[in-house]
């Protein structure tokens, strides 16, 4: 029944938006009858949300949505009791009640909660399974990057989202910052001429050393569930946050940041729905400690149109962090902190005409998701795009792990003539976990 009601409400809003002739980036005109008495949307018309994985990133995302009056946050799921307690306290404080419902197991969350949309902020080994389960449960998804731990899982997420007609926004929030969009628009409209090379600086690897002895699992943490499809491993105190330094759960800074700067590099070149055709990479892996993701990485990708992309940890690229496109008339460098530079500052004053390529405009990454949940239009970073930014990084990881030059067909998404490298396009899951439908 709730499912039915939810769809009705969406149809109502869609009709309303069309009727008002509203562009998706403009505020909706809400009839006064739909307003709650404090000027917010009546509870029955709000987008009902939950969060799965309410750690540091999940909580950060949740705060953004809690600040939106059109959102009603009702439930959260985390396999750590401490985090459930903290999350419940935040949501309840926001609404002044004790209604927020907490779950340890996402399957129970999905069975019991009738939410419209969900935030996913999980360690990478869980992305594929839970994203597909949520898409099949007909939820719209605000999913953290990277899309998935392997290319195969990314493909399956895209399939599930498409099959179920879900709205997906990736946490690649740089796209909703004006200077990133401006840099991309200047590049894509030829303001630095014909671009043949782009350089992407991602964070330097974590050189952390030290031993982490096997130790008791902290009370309230479901360690076996945390591992999920990853290989069984004893608890060594490496769990929240630090999972990103172990290959079973993450590819390190490379895969952590692909959804930011590789995504932006692709955006400025119109390459966001394809991938490199040839990839070579050199990684330097730790020689001490238990962490095993590369501390230095340098990957060269070549795209079908001949553009070359060098993506590496920041100290191996001349401009450091961010994206630097090189054209035959100059370069443009963009990075966080409103940093937008060019070989000639006059390039940055150039106007982009109405007849030129205009990129998708979003000034609020979270609002963009909510708007699209209502309009059913594509977000600024749909999963198809996120899949391509992480694929470039994952192909680099495969090149580094095998020491081989990888040839990739971005259309069929297959590694050409290399069965060994192809093995790393997916990873075996620990029983009983599998992707729904596979």
């Amino acid at each position: 029944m709730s499912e039915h009601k939810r769809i009705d409400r969406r149809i109502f809003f869609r009709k309303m938006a069309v009727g008002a002739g509203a562009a998706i980036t403009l505020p909706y005109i809400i009839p006064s009858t739909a307003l709650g008495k404090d000027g917010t949307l009546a509870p029955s018309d709000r987008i009902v949300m939950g969060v799965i994985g309410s750690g540091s990133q999940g909580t950060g995302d949740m705060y953004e949505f809690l600040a939106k009056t059109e959102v009603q946050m009702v439930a959260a799921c985390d396999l750590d009791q401490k985090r459930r307690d903290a999350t419940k306290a935040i949501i309840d404080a926001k609404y002044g009640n004790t209604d927020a419902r907490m779950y340890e197991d996402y399957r129970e969350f999905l069975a019991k909660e009738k939410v419209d949309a969900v935030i996913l902020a999980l360690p990478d080994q869980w992305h594929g399974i839970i994203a597909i389960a949520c898409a099949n449960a007909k939820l719209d998804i605000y999913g953290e990057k990277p899309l998935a731990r392997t290319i195969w899982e990314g493909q399956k997420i895209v399939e599930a989202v498409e099959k179920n007609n879900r709205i997906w926004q990736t946490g690649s929030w740089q796209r909703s910052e004006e200077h990133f969009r401006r840099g991309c628009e200047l590049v894509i409209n030829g303001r630095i001429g014909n671009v043949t090379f782009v350089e992407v600086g991602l964070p330097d690897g974590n050189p952390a050393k030290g031993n982490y002895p096997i130790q008791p699992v902290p009370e309230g943490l479901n360690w076996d569930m945390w591992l999920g499809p990853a290989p069984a491993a004893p608890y060594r105190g490496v769990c929240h946050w630090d999972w990103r330094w172990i290959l079973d759960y993450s590819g390190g800074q490379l895969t952590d940041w692909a959804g930011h700067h590789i995504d932006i590099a692709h955006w400025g070149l119109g390459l966001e729905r394809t991938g490199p055709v040839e990839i070579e990479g050199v990684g330097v892996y730790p020689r001490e400690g238990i962490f095993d993701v590369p501390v230095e990485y340098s990957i060269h990708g070549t795209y079908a149109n001949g553009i070359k992309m060098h993506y590496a940890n920041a100290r191996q690229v001349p401009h450091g962090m961010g994206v630097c496109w090189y054209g035959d008339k100059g370069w443009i460098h963009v990075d966080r902190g409103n940093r937008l530079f060019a070989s000639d500052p006059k390039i940055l004053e150039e106007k982009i005409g109405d007849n030129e390529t205009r990129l998708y405009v979003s000034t609020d990454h979270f609002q963009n998701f909510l708007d699209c949940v209502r309009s059913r239009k594509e977000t600024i970073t749909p999963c198809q795009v996120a899949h391509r930014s992480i694929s470039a990084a994952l192909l680099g990881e495969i090149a580094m792990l095998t020491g081989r030059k990888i040839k990739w067909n971005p259309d069929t998404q297959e590694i050409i003539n290399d069965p060994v490298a192809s093995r790393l396009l997916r990873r075996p899951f620990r029983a009983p976990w599998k992707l729904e439908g596979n």
Partner: protein
Amino acid sequence: MKNIYIKLLIPLALLGATLSVTSCKQSPESQAPKKALIITGQNNHTWEGSTPVLKKILENSGLFSVDIAQSPAAKTDMSGYKPVFGNYNLIVLDYNGDAWPAETQKAFEDYVSDGGGVVVYHAADNAFRGWKEYNKITGLGGWGNRNEADGPFIHWKDGAFVRDTTTPGIGGYHGAQKAFQVTARDTVHPIMKGLPAVWMHAQDELYSQLRGPAENMTILATSWSDSAKGGSNRNEPVLMTINYGKGRIFHTVLGHAMGDSAYPAMECVGFIFTLQRGAEWAATGQVTLPVPDDFPHFNIESKWPLFRPLTFDEILANLTNYKTGDTRCNLQDLTNYIRKNYDGGEKYAKIEAGLLKFLKGQGSADAKNYIIRELSIFGSDKALPVLKKLQKNEETKEMARLAIERITTQYTN
């Protein structure tokens, strides 16, 4: 890390594995090895320790055969010390002691100016303050009461070579020993080509405030001498080339060796490899040695305790008692070895046979699990029977399952 390597040597000896230092990189048959001579016998450092190591390092390059010209002991008659420099393509100076006979000095000057190759190693640049031509050959030196009369202070600042001709003072000192970064200042020179821009050198003493004529000198690399460790707060030159007449000189200030324990500075792959390349360049004017996979990086030290990469058998033997949390050096050595030698054919078949033999043996579960993980990427069907057995063992079943699944699953989109 040092302790672990010392521990490793014992099981190797028990296994009867050869620890001889025969070269692992054979030079092409058409090229006879170049002849090198190490000048040694007196030093304020332990030349009895450093000279054999230098000999191994040169021989392990596959490029040199090495003789040693040991001088008489200090304060004894030096008049008979007359190495025949001209018989050699390379002279390596590991000497800081009494003056040579005038005839030997002249012979050395002629050898170099006529096109000979020289490596100046560590305290050799402390030697012979008063011998003007020697100081032109080394370019820079320290101690022995050197001061402004011996040449400017040389360091590196704001991207450029600085010759400080105005500041007076003693030339040559060093702060406390520690690991420190080496920064390339010439990335085009054949000795430096392909090396990381910055790499971590193992514990060493960093010579600071050297002085000298520094004529025809190229600074290849510098290191920051940190005042917190008693240093000069300057970028000090650590690798240099000098031209003297037609001669080519490679000068490394690195590689401190004192006492009879291990010498971490000399085990550093960065020290070893730049010395090998520097020696080749000095002897031939060219560099052919490719950068090793385990060259140190920005903040990662890397050592060759045997002054060469380990063989496949040695790597496996070292893994026998590996426990998660131990140094990953041996794991990385194994992975690098497999990656480098994987050909999907005969060469890999031998590697896989070695890995499978290890998996059937008495190695630790953590070591086996690491090897099984490698097999999950590179393994062939031949690995399956062993992996299936390992699946029955509680400690290895998880990785074995993962490897079997990877090997037997054909990836399809």
